[in-house]
């Protein structure tokens, strides 16, 4: 199998606290953040689409701004109406689809990120909801992020005699008449995703309670990995403050984390174990406060592309001196 194409970027590009650590402080009128961003990275995850239905004009603008970078891809996070509120209309579906189509036609679509909340555990109802969403957006690549362990755990013994919770139970028949081999829930889930043009999104986050552990698993053609940081204390705090009104800083605090070089080496190893089984790999850094995501994105880009030196802006080198060793300039 040929080597996969590696896409490294961040979750969003519009953060004011990236000024001076990525974007220059002295910006001319025609300075555009996305255009600048695309000079350094070949993908970005659009998070605004989770909160609002993006206008086609805006999408058109994005496509124009990255036109200098041939291989640039956008991944769109599905609106919360579909994944969290789980209550959506035909019109809302069309609004999402038309943007996906526009990006796809321009060869700028990485895929649709379908992210479920931590509380979204494996139940029959939830499994059917996943099925519904994947079928709804069947024309596009999808990256499914489940944060609850139950989706990825082996099947409990009881499930052998129970009707399936997932939509695609299969029992492998045994030719020699021995006891049939029961697939684990995780295996069924992966198969189901692969059949529906979907990949499993791996996440790195503080390992708290029933949260899934970091383990990239290749399902389908793509590998999509999101890094939320390991700020355990702030993460726990944010779980306590869930649904309370919070400032941007309060909301962002749990992502305030800079992965250390040693942690990145461990991450590199985990990714490389499955790297050659897929066609595309998307690495998305969501530890955005201060520009930490930017620094770690450059470092992972270096590690995953045979340690070639990376083009890094002066602003980032100044804020993160340890990147000097991997910098092209």
């Amino acid at each position: 199998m040929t080597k996969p194409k590696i896409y490294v970027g961040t979750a969003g590009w519009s953060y004011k606290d990236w000024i001076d650590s990525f974007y220059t402080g002295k910006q001319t009128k025609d300075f555009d953040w996305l255009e600048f961003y695309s000079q350094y990275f070949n993908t970005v995850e659009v998070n605004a689409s989770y909160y609002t239905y993006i206008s086609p004009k805006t999408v058109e603008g994005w496509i124009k701004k990255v036109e200098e970078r041939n291989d640039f891809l956008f991944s769109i996070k599905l609106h919360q109406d579909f994944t969290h509120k789980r209550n959506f209309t035909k019109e809302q579906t069309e609004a999402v689809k038309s943007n996906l189509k526009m990006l796809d036609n321009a060869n700028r679509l990485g895929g649709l990120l379908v992210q479920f909340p931590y509380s979204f555990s494996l139940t029959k109802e939830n499994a059917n909801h996943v099925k519904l969403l994947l079928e709804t957006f069947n024309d596009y690549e999808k990256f499914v992020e489940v944060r609850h362990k139950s989706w990825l755990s082996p099947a409990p013994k009881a499930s052998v005699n129970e009707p399936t919770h997932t939509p695609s139970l299969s029992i492998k028949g045994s030719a020699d008449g021995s006891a049939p081999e029961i697939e684990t829930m995780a295996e069924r889930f992966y198969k189901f995703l692969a059949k529906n043009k979907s990949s499993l999104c791996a996440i790195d986050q503080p390992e708290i309670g029933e949260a899934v552990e970091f383990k990239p698993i290749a399902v389908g053609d793509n590998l999509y990995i999101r890094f939320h940081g390991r700020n355990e204390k702030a993460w726990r705090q944010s779980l306590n403050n869930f649904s309370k009104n919070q400032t941007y800083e309060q909301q962002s605090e749990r992502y305030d984390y800079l992965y250390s070089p040693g942690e990145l080496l461990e991450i590199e190893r985990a990714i490389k174990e499955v790297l050659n089984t897929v066609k595309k790999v998307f690495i998305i850094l969501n530890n955005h406060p201060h520009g930490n995501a930017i620094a770690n994105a450059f470092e992972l880009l270096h590690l995953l592309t045979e340690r070639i030196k990376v083009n890094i802006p002066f602003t980032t080198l100044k804020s993160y001196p340890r990147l000097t060793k991997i910098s092209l300039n």
Partner: protein
Amino acid sequence: MKTIFHLDMDAFFVSVERILDPSLEGKPVIVGGDPHGRGVVAACSYEARKYGLHSGMPIRNAFRLCPNGVYIHGHHKEYGRFSKAMKYLLEEKFPIVQQASVDEFYFDFTGCESIYGPPEIFAKQLQDEILQKLSLPCSMGISSNKSVSKIATDFKKPMGITYVPYGKEKEFLEPLAIEKIPGVGKKLFPVLQARGFRTIGDIANASPGYLAVLLGKYGTDLWNRANGMGNDVLSVEQERKSISSETTFNEDIVGKAEIEKYIFHLTSKVAQQLRNENWQASTISIKLRYSDFSTLTRAKTLLHSTDDDKTIYDTSVQLFRQAYTRRVGVRLIGIHLGKLNHSCEQEFLFEDEEIIRKRMLGAVTKIRDKFGANAIHIGVSEKD
């Protein structure tokens, strides 16, 4: 005849610190904490060694010699991560890799010439690869056995490569000072020096019988090593995930004090095993089963990993007291040590009291190894 590589990372802790903070490059860097404290130097850069600094010296003395040095506490978890990455890199290339310490490895190159070419040329390529992939400098020694390879590594540092061809071991060792032999330290050095031994050649040319009389079994071993002989078998153990021990009582027990005695006994067992395997544990958990078979576990993750009986015992007792809430007989008690990592000296271990404890525990481990687990017990106050 085998080809054994010994690889030692150069000023490992300092090299990792320089990855984290490149401004430390070229400066005398001392890992070990507060220069006015009571600890000792865990590691220092080659720039610091020019001032006479070395690992293990009291940090206050180091500060007197090198007041302009950069003194840092160190990032011990990060050292562990780089150590692991180093091991993975070697395991991808060689079937047999033995990790001797956090920054030291042996690997068997025998039969690999057809893939990698001559060992001394390959060593340079490997050194460059490690520097490029992990930004870590290292030195290597190559010979037919572990003992000579280790001495050869030390012969040229940093970024050195020393190849001792088969048959030339004795010739290589002959002019070297006796303290270059691992194990010839503070105690043995004066004993040998007083008897006129200056070079390894002096030992090699002495009668093996004399050394056996002088030092017992160790004397014979020393003579063999001085003559370029040594072990060429690498011990490769499967990575341990945890160590645990539990006991089911003949009759159910009621009462904290009685159960805590058993915790004490279990602590001795697991801590001994931990130290024997050169591990430290970060997570300590206890298992408690009541007479009605209801079972519960309680765990605690420590700030610093440990192999100390006292820490393990104190934590286990604390967990037990929190968990033991019913006035029902206890059927089973167990201790489980998890998140194991290779023992690497940590700054906090170097406080005077800790040094004494560490020596004491080292002695306890040896006595138990020789005479059995019950040969010696560490006392516990009844009030505890």
